């Protein structure tokens, strides 16, 4: 049975005092349609606070949250539904299973009103879907962390919720287990077509799970779109760091070439120039450029005949092997981090003091806000 699916819409303004007269302010306005939407951001960006507001565990002073036609909170109209009345599934970072109940009792906790045979049927349907039915008689302390999180998922979905909130639910699980849980969740959602809001700060999860991403930073939405567009063009330095950009360089804009869609900028503290994609900057402005260490090529001779516009000369400062990745620090006016493979390290005989050229494509350079 297919239905059109509901939309979760939230406009939330929430201020929480912190120590030393500072305060954290959440100010967002967004909509989530059926399917998995990733809420992405560094820790402290306000992701969990936002989920608590949607679930009704926190009561923001100024908010309008609707699920389909139903208003969960409308501060202008004085409406605030309690968490009990919202019918939203919420999975926390920790499974939070009731320690004195068995797996079966946990999974059935939200079905208090249901008659006995239906209740057991619903519980075992979900326990089987998430492959934990064989643990039904165990206590939470007798099962593993991954199993506990699957039981928590079954418990959250049992009361037939209208929306699902997941707060880094698979933290600490290995990648294979993670994707199998998410596949199961997707399979479950094929019939119900609920909006699922999935919070994470790990970029590999964003790539793997989401159809749509909302990036949150300092309590505000900084970008929205496909995983590819959000991860590859982060708007702020903090988000860029979470998205896996290792290099941040400040540069002064020298020249704008609107016709070519680029601008030239000089790196602070050196004579080296970079060609960057055109951004919101004028001549003389200071900009911050983020570049992934894996997007920089290393050459031991000056390369020619390349389409890449940025070729910088430098020397290797240090080399550090981290598993399958070799991290080279290269001094090319500014300090660059460059990732190469152990094979490349041997083939090019890269070592401290060696003279190298860095090759960087214009569109590997992302302008970010500080």
């Amino acid at each position, binding site marked *: 049975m297919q239905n059109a699916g509901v939309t979760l819409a939230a406009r939330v303004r929430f201020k929480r005092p912190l120590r030393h007269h500072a305060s954290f302010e959440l100010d967002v306005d967004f909509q989530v349609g059926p399917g998995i939407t990733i809420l992405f951001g560094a820790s402290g960006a306000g992701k969990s606070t936002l989920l608590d507001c949607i679930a009704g565990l926190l009561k923001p002073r100024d908010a309008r949250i609707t699920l389909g036609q139903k208003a969960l909170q409308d501060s202008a109209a004085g409406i605030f539904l309690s968490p*009990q009345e919202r019918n*939203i599934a919420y999975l926390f970072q920790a499974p939070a299973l009731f320690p004195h109940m068995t797996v079966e009792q946990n999974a059935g906790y939200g079905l208090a009103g249901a008659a006995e045979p239906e209740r057991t049927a619903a519980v075992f349907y979900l326990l089987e879907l998430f492959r934990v039915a064989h643990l039904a008689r165990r206590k939470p302390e*007798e099962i593993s962390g991954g199993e506990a999180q699957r039981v928590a998922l079954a*418990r959250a979905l049992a009361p037939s919720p209208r929306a699902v909130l997941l707060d880094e639910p698979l933290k600490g699980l290995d990648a294979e287990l993670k994707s199998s849980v998410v596949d199961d969740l997707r399979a479950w959602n094929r019939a119900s077509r609920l909006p699922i809001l999935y919070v994470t700060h790990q970029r590999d999860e964003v790539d793997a799970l989401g159809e749509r991403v909302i990036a949150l930073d300092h309590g505000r939405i900084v970008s929205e779109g496909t995983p590819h567009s959000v991860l590859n063009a982060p708007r702020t330095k903090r988000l860029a760091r979470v998205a896996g950009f290792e290099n941040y360089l400040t540069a002064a804009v020298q020249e704008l070439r609107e016709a070519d869609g680029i601008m030239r900028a000089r790196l602070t503290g050196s004579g080296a120039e970079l060609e960057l994609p055109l951004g919101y900057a004028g001549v003389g402005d200071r900009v911050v450029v983020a570049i992934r260490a894996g997007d920089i090529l290393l050459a031991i001779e000056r390369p020619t005949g390349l389409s890449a516009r940025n070729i910088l000369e430098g020397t290797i400062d240090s080399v550090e092997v981290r598993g399958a990745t070799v991290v080279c620090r290269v001094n090319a006016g500014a300090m660059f981090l460059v990732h190469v493979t152990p094979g490349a390290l041997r083939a090019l005989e890269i070592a401290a003091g060696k003279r190298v050229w860095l090759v960087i494509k214009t569109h590997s350079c992302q302008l970010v806000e500080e």
Partner: protein
Amino acid sequence: MQALWLSVRLAASAAAILLLIGMPLAYWLAQSKWRGKFLLESVVALPLVLPPTVLGFFLLVAMGANGPIGKLWVALFGHTLAFTFLGLVVASVLYSLPFAVQPLVAAFESVDGRLLDAAAVLGAGRWRTFRGIILPLSVPGIITAAVLSFTHTLGEFGVVLMVGGNIPGITRTVSIDIYDHVQSLEYGAADRMAIALLLISFAVLSTIYAVNRRVWIPWPVKRGE
């Protein structure tokens, strides 16, 4: 032996009543975010620092024929509350209040807040969450509260003397009895009573520590299957 039986009856009644009124009070103290909460916390803790004779004196005045409670009691039942077993129970409840409430507050507060959030999101109201989650997870704290209020009431002296006097079979508790025997230089009788009280107190206290450390687990679980 009459005095010992009286003391046990008094302590058991006080402990039972304290659990009944202590649980809602402790739940409120553990959950409330009211700013003036500290005032109620101080009132509950007062018997810890107040000399028993002071507390007993106030109670005696209040329960006496001219006190507010005493007048009401006389109008209702024809006799004063002071110098009766019931009067002793009321006094003991107040006197042992912190010994019941504080372990209960600590137990309720130590229940993981995320479990309560999970229950709320799953549709469980306050009463169902309290009964099904908070209460079963607070069992050691509840046992501690019951045992502490029992033992504390068992050994009280000052309050009993002020409110109850020394009426055999009605208000003459073990500690009063011991005091009496010592006053009349009957050391042998005092000695027997004192040892009985010591043994009972030790037995109940060791049950709390055993329960809290789970020396005996009533339903053993197999791990790592």
